[in-house]
């Protein structure tokens, strides 16, 4: 049935989270995108929810009966751009230098 195929569909590709995992979290009482995120890891991967956040919000909206605009969005907090540890470490040197 259509319902079964959507349940197995992947919502968050980075962390491999399916719609049924999110449904289980909603059934356990999660009511906000942030709670879904920490329970299922949806949105915690490399893209930091850029791809899945709208899908997660839609599922939460459906389960809670609230419009998506009314939900507090999950905290997606990537660095402004992906930065390597050694690039970041160099800023330490620069900062220390400036302080002299």
């Amino acid at each position, binding site marked *: 049935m259509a319902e079964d195929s959507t349940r197995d569909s992947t919502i968050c590709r980075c*962390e491999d989270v399916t719609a049924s995992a999110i449904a289980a979290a909603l059934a*356990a*009482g*999660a*009511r*906000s995108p*942030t*709670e879904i995120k*920490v*329970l299922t*890891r949806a949105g*915690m*991967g*490399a893209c*930091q929810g850029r791809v899945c956040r709208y899908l997660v919000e839609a599922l939460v909206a459906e389960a809670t009966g609230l419009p998506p605009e009314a939900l507090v969005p999950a*905290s997606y*907090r*990537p*660095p402004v751009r*992906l*930065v*390597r*540890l*050694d690039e*970041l*470490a*160099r*800023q*330490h*040197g620069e*900062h220390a230098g400036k302080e002299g």
Partner: protein
Amino acid sequence: MAGDDSKVVVIGGGAVGTACAYYLARAGDEVTLVERSGLGAEASGANLGLLLVSDKPPGPLFELSLESARLYGNLAAELDYQVQYERSGSLLVYTSPDAMAGAEARAADLRSRGLEAEVLGRAETRRLEPALHPGVAGSLWCNLDGTIYPFALCHGYARAALRHGARVLTHTAATALEAEGGRVTAVVTDRGRIRTEAVVLAAGAWSPALAATVGVRLPIEPSRGQMLVTEPVPPMVRHVIMGHEPYVRQSPYGQLLIGSIPERVGFNKATEVPVLAEFAAGAIGLMPCLGGVPVIRSWAGLRPRAEDQVPIIGEAPGVRGLFVAAGHFRNGMGQAPATGAAIAELIRGRPGYPWLEAFDPGRFA
């Protein structure tokens, strides 16, 4: 609904509050937990998840961590929840032969306290942790340190408390306590007033404001900690690595978690590039191969730091029935289970732990 009565109200859904709710409910008490946001919304969801026993000197802090490690050992089965506890063991890393001078004595001390500990040379250390800097002089291995997935701990405790009949009210904030004739009588929340015989104040760094509503002074202040998280990398850090700041831990999902130092900046959860850059440099100094790993995220959390850096666990002076469980500073994850178990004993009037006295809130009076 928040308007109903309860025997005990726990305020705060972090590691400490959820642990208290679970051990109380398991002992048969009628418990209501109130949390102003979701479970693990503050420090208990922002930390590294290290459970350190071997870094504590002999005494009450060690006992609290040791008893917690004992409770962690069976916790996943007991809660029927994957809290992701790993007793991975730790390596206290020495960067110079001079620094290793005290290692054997330290190992003997840990063994005399019932832990397994062994001094390892450079080759053995690098065999166990190949990513470590080749210049590392050696290490001290200890068996009992481990890690946890912090959110899973809070949710595991809360769900098991629910099964034992507790009520868990998330998105419900306590706004004041009420007392009459020197006894606590109610918790006022933004969704109604709950009359109660006892309160467990486990609101982390936010505990003092609530204590003040019944005239109790709690010397706890926020201590910021920042963290960096990288993209997942193949398994490369197996033990808890100690003796070096920042800590570098690998999560079961492969991401590296890097942090953190205490910063006294009030209730400010901003992250700051200079501090994160220092962490990045420190992590590369410990493990040079990390340089190319991309960072995906950073955040900060607020630890509850008691004035004397010792947790505050026990009945508040002057207000019968008000129990404090807060102020665990850098060790709240490692000490939440025994804190919860001790609070459950205290409220039932049978304080069974000899070390509990050291945490008494009366010490500030």
